């Protein structure tokens, strides 16, 4: 066949490591994007939920007659309408309750023409309660004779976990130093800027379409179905753009089946959307816990053991929160080389709001303990702190006691890089020496590190993803992927990978990933897995398409297959870059020739990892990663206020894919971690939230965000796409203990119950002075 060889050679370039814009950013920046919160459907009704507003009570009587009669009201539902439709991790939850177990228990719901009418209808519902004594801490819940939160769970015992490795008693005897503390990580919540929202609509074949914020659309169908008593196959999940998730949308929450039950009853689409106050009260929390941790080491600074005895505040129902010990124990056993490990955790039902998953998933709480104990031990052992960390840092090829295989381990490099960039060792000594000098403001520097899964986590039977990819007659590529976009930027990563593999412009890639009737299965956005798993899936699908295209080109052009490459929208000779045919012309010829073919491929990628298993001894992630944060702070010893002056970050990212997205994830992750460390706190009194607004629940604002010095360590993960590892949880995990360690460096005090609020810091400094004088 005739080919024109007149165009200039197309040079080989790569997009890997470049800065790629999020494809959805222009529409988001202009207000054009229609978030789920913005959606209105014809005939749509507004659903509103009546919350109990008390932590533990029997419902003696509930009278909805007046509400039902209000003009504009189409349905009023109560506990009897959801009776028996149990859902949740241990089937202990139901969309509408006939007994109150926590403040936000949903006891009735209405669907009305407007939000105003729906609110008015809620006021007309008459409920008589009989209040019951409650339990509001895990200790109280575990006490003998404590009131039962869930009748089917004696002793208020929810999930429990255990892992033991080695002879603890012998390791304790062999230890020269042991630190022993009780940490009390607190309740915080996700504060997605877009409040919770779902729109449900049934068709006349009984099939439910639900527009939802979910970040796990496929297992979501399994989890939602029992709450409605329908077949999961009859659920179509549509995921419009959402205002953040951060783990909060990794389960079914009652407002979603409530929207569906109202839709079923009325035959019309029903939208439930929370106000900010409802969002604070009724959305999941990060798991609060009591962690009794002990870590030992020998005189030469070698770790001898670590033990953790954990009580989790389950709250009234079991969502993902009480499952976090799966990750807590990986950190307990794998954060530095720990030869002997003893971990146990028990979740206890209480009448508090219940915990879901939240970016960092148990590791935020655990690393707050492990990283402070490392700092404490560093002070007890008479060697340079950095040397102490390096001495215990694992190397590539080591296994943790739980058999996490650290194939590429860059912990030492992270430590050395961050320490050198921040002048850590010198400053730490200098600031500690300045503690006792006069002066209101004290400087401190603190180092913390952690380990996290960076190649998914096989806690389900599969950690895989389906990808379909087609290239049309205009060389436009459509990727139909199970991967959800929740703001984190997988859209940019997928676009980049397709453009890299197929040599097409970024703008010529479209992603279809918002409809479960179209896109194939995926586990969901969690476990820092999406770039790793969806990146591999996309790359594999793109390579299949590329093989098909180049085979056709070789045949058509009479060129040897191995000499051809896709570049700059053309098929080129790889060696010299000479373009042989434009890709879109080639595709049209493939399509319209006598033996026609379309380029459409599919792939199912399952990462090379082992199921978690009941014994928790398995290589459950396809990769693991480390990050080191060094925080530099100034403490106002009078007011207790901590100002974070700078954070130096060294993180093993495997390989940078989209540099801009990577930076954004680390910056944003640190902001959430800073809020956890310094100011965010759900003030619960007898199970009632006292600060359900941004005025009293303080997020980090722009002036409080410190400058960041980011260092990306590229360990080149063999299994990861182009060598990349998952990255987005470590930034949230590591920052709080880095600040806590800096506080100690500056003032000599430690606080075991975050946040490090001014009141607590000032009190601790005052108490330390009293004790010293």
């Amino acid at each position, binding site marked *: 066949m005739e080919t024109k060889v007149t165009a200039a050679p197309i040079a080989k370039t790569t997009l890997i490591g470049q*800065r790629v814009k999020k494809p959805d950013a222009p529409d988001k920046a*202009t*207000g054009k994007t229609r978030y789920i919160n913005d959606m209105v459907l014809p005939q749509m009704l507004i659903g509103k939920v009546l919350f109990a507003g008390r932590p533990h009570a029997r419902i003696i009587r509930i009278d909805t007659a007046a509400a039902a009669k209000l003009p504009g009201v189409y349905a009023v539902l109560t506990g009897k309408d959801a009776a028996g439709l149990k859902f949740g991790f241990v089937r202990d939850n139901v969309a509408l309750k006939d007994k109150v177990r926590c403040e936000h228990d949903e006891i009735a719901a209405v669907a009305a023409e407007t939000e105003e009418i729906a609110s008015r209808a809620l006021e007309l519902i008459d409920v008589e309660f009989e209040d019951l004594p409650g339990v509001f801490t895990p200790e109280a819940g575990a006490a003998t004779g404590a009131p039962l939160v869930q009748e089917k769970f004696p002793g208020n015992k929810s999930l429990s976990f255990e892992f033991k490795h080695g002879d603890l008693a012998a390791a304790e005897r062999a230890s020269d130093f042991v630190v022993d503390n009780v940490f009390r990580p607190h309740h915080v919540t996700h504060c997605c800027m877009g409040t919770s929202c779902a729109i449900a609509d049934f068709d006349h074949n009984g099939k439910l379409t639900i527009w939802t914020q979910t970040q796990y659309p496929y297992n979501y169908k399994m989890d939602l179905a029992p709450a409605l008593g329908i077949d999961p196959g009859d659920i179509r999940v549509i995921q419009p753009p959402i205002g953040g998730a951060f783990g909060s949308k990794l389960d079914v929450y009652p407002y979603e089946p409530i929207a569906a039950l109202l839709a079923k009853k009325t035959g019309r689409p029903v939208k439930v959307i929370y106000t900010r106050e409802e969002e604070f009260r009724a959305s999941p929390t990060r798991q609060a816990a009591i962690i009794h941790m002990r870590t030992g080491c020998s005189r030469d600074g070698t770790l001898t053991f670590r033990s953790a005895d954990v009580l989790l505040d389950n709250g009234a129902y079991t969502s993902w929160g009480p499952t976090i010990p799966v990750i807590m124990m990986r950190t307990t056993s794998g954060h530095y080389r720990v030869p002997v490990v003893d971990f146990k955790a028990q979740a206890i039902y209480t009448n508090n709001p219940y915990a879901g998953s939240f970016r960092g998933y148990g590791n935020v709480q655990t690393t707050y303990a492990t990283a402070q104990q490392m700092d404490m031990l560093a002070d007890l052992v008479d060697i340079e702190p950095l040397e102490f960390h390096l001495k215990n840092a694992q190397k590539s090829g080591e296994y943790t006691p739980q058999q996490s295989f650290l194939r590429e381990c860059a912990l030492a490099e992270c430590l050395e890089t961050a320490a050198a960039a921040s002048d850590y060792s010198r400053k730490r000594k200098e600031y500690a020496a300045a503690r006792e000098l006069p002066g209101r403001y004290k400087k401190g520097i603190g180092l913390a590190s952690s380990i996290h899964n960076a190649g998914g986590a096989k806690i389900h039977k599969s950690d895989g993803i389906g990808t379909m990819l087609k290239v049309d007659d205009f060389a436009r590529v459509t990727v139909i992927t199970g991967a959800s976009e929740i703001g984190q930027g997988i859209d940019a990563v997928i676009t980049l990978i397709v453009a890299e593999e197929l040599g097409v412009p970024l703008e010529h890639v479209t992603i279809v990933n918002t409809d479960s009737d179209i896109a194939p299965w995926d586990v969901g956005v969690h476990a820092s897995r999406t770039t790793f798993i969806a990146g591999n899936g996309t790359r594999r699908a793109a390579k299949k398409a590329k093989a098909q295209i180049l085979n056709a080109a070789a045949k058509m052009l009479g060129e040897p297959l191995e000499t051809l490459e896709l570049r700059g929208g053309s098929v080129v000779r790889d060696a010299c870059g000479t373009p042989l045919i434009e890709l879109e012309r080639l595709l049209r010829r493939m399509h319209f020739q006598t033996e026609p073919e379309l380029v459409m491929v599919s792939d199912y990628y399952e990462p090379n990892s082992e199921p978690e298993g009941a014994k928790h001894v398995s290589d459950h992630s396809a990769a693991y990663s480390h990050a080191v944060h060094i925080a530099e702070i100034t403490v106002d010893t009078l007011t207790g206020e901590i100002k974070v002056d700078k954070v130096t970050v060294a993180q093993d990212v495997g390989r940078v894919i989209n540099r*801009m997205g990577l*930076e954004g994830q680390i910056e944003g992750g640190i902001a959430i971690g800073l809020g956890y460390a310094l100011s965010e706190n759900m003030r619960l009194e007898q199970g009632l939230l006292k600060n359900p607004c941004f005025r009293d629940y303080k997020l980090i604002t722009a002036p409080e965000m410190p400058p960041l010095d980011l260092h990306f360590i590229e360990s080149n993960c063999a299994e990861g796409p182009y060598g990349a590892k998952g990255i987005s949880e470590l930034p949230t995990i590591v920052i709080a203990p880095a600040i806590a360690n800096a506080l100690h460096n500056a003032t000599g005090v430690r606080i075991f119950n975050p946040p490090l609020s001014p009141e607590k810091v000032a009190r601790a400094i005052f108490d330390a002075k009293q004790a010293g004088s």
Partner: protein
Amino acid sequence: MSVETEIRFKLNGREVSLTVPVTMKALAMLRDKLGLTGTKYACGEGECGACTIKVDGKTVNSCLMYAVDCDGRELVTIEGLRTPEGLHPVQQAFVDHGAVQCGFCMPGMIMQADYLVENNPELTREEAQRGLEGNLCRCTGYTKVLDAVEAVVEAKKCCGRC
């Protein structure tokens, strides 16, 4: 039903007249009556800035302003920032610098950033941080937002046109 009243004002350069309940907030009017959903509800009590719009050249939280108080004024929302040539320079800078993740707070953030750079050609990063204090973002840690604002200030200094 609350009392309704007719108001007239300029919205994104066009005259608008409509009848609104006297208890309605400007945010609800924009979103529910006029279909301008770019302006977001995220707290409803002036704490988060997601509903920031411009009224007579000044930024306000539209969730705190009554719709009737728009009468006779000039409003600009995120939809009105875009120029016929395309994205407004502040919008473009936010896109280029990766300031947009979930993007829900960005309409408000961009309105406030535009106000800041418009009114202070010498805006420093510290001043931008202070000026954006009332705009909460849960995704970005503000770093890329500030990068974008700095870039707009620099670009203005260099050509004086944008």
